[in-house]
């Protein structure tokens, strides 16, 4: 499967009479977009705001972040199962708005939403501060259940990303990159001497604000299976998950999965990228075991020699992570695990909830319990007071001058366990 990704650079965003890309500026017809989103009867009101890199702006509480994109050639359309039908994506040509993201915000659903600071010390903790963000403030109709509220906001984010992606449809991309995923026999024939590397992609599946979707299917019920890396780039995996903002894989993270990107780029050179196995993280031990055994067998069937496993979330998913590691290593498959840790504010507590002796090669994306104080921002998009109840926040997080003291856990994507950022932990 071959996918050409064309990047259309967005250097600024402006509200205008007509939605279009012009000279690197994304123009948005606010009324048209609001009208489109309000077609969903669960949504009472939508406001749209813009946050640019370097502005003194704090966005809170953030649910999901999505990168606008559109398929211009090839089967299906982005975000299959939501925006479009479920035809297989991942081939042809897709245009993306680079340097831009849709951020869903507005009234909090539960505790798991997070913060983006567009400037100041908080800005270095994620890559979203460097993007031109279109923030959707969504007000649900009253009486909506939490599940329905989350679903409405999720769909609005995807619709907005598709709507804005259309602005890139007929624009000549500034940069193009072609990704090739060979079939198993092609890859074996082309690269017999390169190590066969497989990516085991753990996807959270634990209920409200902890769910993910594959072609629209709730990941809770899946058995581990194969997916092409290029399908993921076209939005085959969508996030409905907010737990601990620091390590939720936002839809943006899925679309730009850095492990997939690096493996695709090194494919045929340093390694043979043999495939991606998606697996889930159930709340039940028997399901965890079933998934780990199934993943082990799939990895053997596609003759993996080395596997990278990324975790999503923490706590009980560490059992899935360690089961995956142990079973793969037992089959003589070398593993590297990518995770994060919660070592307490003093960094002295055990940072993982489960361990296995076979986990001798682990990448950490930071300690989420580190406490930081961020200065007040001139403008808040959203509800600043929610800082006191979100994960990583506490009673007293919000100071009278508008500064906030929170754990890193509150910052969107700061510890992304796909390894998107550069934060890590070292022993002192």
């Amino acid at each position, binding site marked *: 499967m071959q996918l050409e990704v064309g990047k259309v650079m967005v250097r600024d965003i402006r509200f205008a009479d007509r939605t279009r890309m012009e000279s690197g500026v994304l123009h948005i017809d606010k009324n048209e977009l609001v009208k489109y989103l309000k077609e969903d009867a669960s949504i009472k009101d939508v406001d749209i705001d813009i946050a640019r890199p370097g502005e003194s702006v704090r966005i809170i509480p953030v649910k999901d972040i999505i990168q606008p994109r559109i398929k211009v050639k090839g089967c299906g359309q982005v975000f299959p199962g939501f925006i479009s039908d479920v035809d297989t994506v991942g081939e042809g040509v897709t245009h993306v708005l680079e340097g831009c993201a849709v951020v869903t915000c507005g009234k909090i659903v539960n505790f798991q939403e997070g913060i983006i600071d567009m400037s100041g010390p908080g800005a270095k903790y994620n890559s979203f501060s460097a993007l031109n963000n279109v923030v959707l403030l969504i007000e649900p109709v009253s009486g909506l259940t939490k*599940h329905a509220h989350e679903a409405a906001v999720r769909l609005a984010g995807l619709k907005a990303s598709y709507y804005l992606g259309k602005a890139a449809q007929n624009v000549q991309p500034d940069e193009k990159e072609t990704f090739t995923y060979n079939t198993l026999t092609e890859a074996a024939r082309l690269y017999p001497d390169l190590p066969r590397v497989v990516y085991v992609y753990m996807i959270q599946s634990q209920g*409200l604000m902890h769910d993910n979707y594959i072609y629209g299917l709730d990941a809770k019920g899946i058995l581990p299976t194969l997916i092409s890396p290029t399908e993921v780039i076209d939005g085959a995996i969508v996030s409905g998950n907010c737990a601990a903002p620091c390590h939720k894989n936002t839809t943006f993270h899925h679309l730009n999965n850095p492990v997939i990107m690096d493996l695709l780029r090194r494919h045929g050179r340093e390694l043979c990228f043999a495939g991606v196995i998606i697996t889930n993280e159930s709340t039940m031990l028997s399901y965890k075991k079933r998934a780990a055994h199934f993943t082990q067998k799939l990895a053997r069937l596609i003759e993996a020699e080395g596997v990278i496993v990324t975790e999503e979330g923490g706590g009980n998913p560490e059992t899935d992570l360690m089961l995956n590691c142990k079973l793969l290593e037992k089959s003589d498959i070398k593993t*590297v695990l990518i995770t994060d840790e*919660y070592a307490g504010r003093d960094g002295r507590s055990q940072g993982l909830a489960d361990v296995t002796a076979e*986990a001798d090669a682990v990448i950490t994306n930071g300690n989420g319990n580190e406490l930081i104080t961020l200065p007040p921002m001139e403008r808040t998009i959203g509800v600043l007071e929610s800082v006191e109840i*979100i994960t990583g926040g506490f009673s007293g997080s919000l100071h009278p001058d508008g500064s906030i003291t929170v754990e*890193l856990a509150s910052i969107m994507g700061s510890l992304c366990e796909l390894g998107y950022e*550069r934060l*890590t932990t070292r*022993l002192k």
Partner: protein
Amino acid sequence: MKKLKFAHYINQFYGQIGGEDKGDQPPVVHEKAVGPGSGLEKLFGEEGEIIATVICGDTYFAENPEKAAEEITDILKKYDFDCFIAGPAFNAGRYGMACGAICRAVQERLGAPAVASMYTENPGAEIYAKDIYVLETGKSAAAMKDALPAIAEFALKLARGVEIGFPEDEGYIPQGRRVNVFADKTGAVRGVDMLLSKLKGESFTTELPMPVFDRVTPAPAVKNLARAKIALVTSGGVVPRGNPDRIEAANATKYGKYSIEGIDDLVTDEYITVHGGYDPVYVLEDPDRVLPVDVMRLLEKEGVIGKLFEYFYSTVGNTTAVSSAKRFGEEIGRDLLANGVDGAILTST
């Protein structure tokens, strides 16, 4: 630049008083460098001087460490120094223990930075490395000529208040603190790099060594359940509406104790969950799902258990530090024992 002032601790042997036979030497101070201290001072050059050396016998210290440490810090109180140095003790066990204890006492009682130095396997290293800086040295005094420059350089840094870097670069034994830093490459790229090294059989260093957990020996089983008082304890975050104690959604710093006297069943809206790590919808509909008061009351009525304790304890387990959880467990356990509780049911999520 003003000369930095150091205080130094050595034992009776390095203090040139005598060998094992002089181990009972009580603490004595000289207002100059003595023994290896002279070597240190030469290395400090214009930047520093040793203004006080305390010499104490290893036996004297070992026989009453608390008293000896107090006597020594009392002596040191009279001196104004920028940094305290102890050793190098190499592999001498009692000397190493004394160095560690005194450095910790100096840090705690005098608020001065301190550094000890000894061989990695000296028992003093294992005990004190997490509280004070312990520089690694070779095994015997033959390593003195390598040890002194390392000690001098580190002590000057400490005295100047320069931020101390990582153990691999600075030469001290890791203190067990995980600290966040930014790497040059993303986690994903570091992961692929590490896998390629592992596949090639090259050496690599894991970024997260597996933590070690202690094991708690379970208490013996409750002998007579029909006469026992049983309590409910949860990390699922079930609390009275309004969260009166403001328990955090994650990394809880506290737990609550709430009365369920006269309550047979937890009712929606009266109780909520504040735990941010799981789907709350079903427990909000019926809080008994995480804190099963209703079932416990049935068991009480049927005589299966003697009595349900009239309080429950609740906290949030979501990313909560193990050290906090340990503290909660110890405190709750003491309270339960004081109230004659025989057993507890812990519910998590």
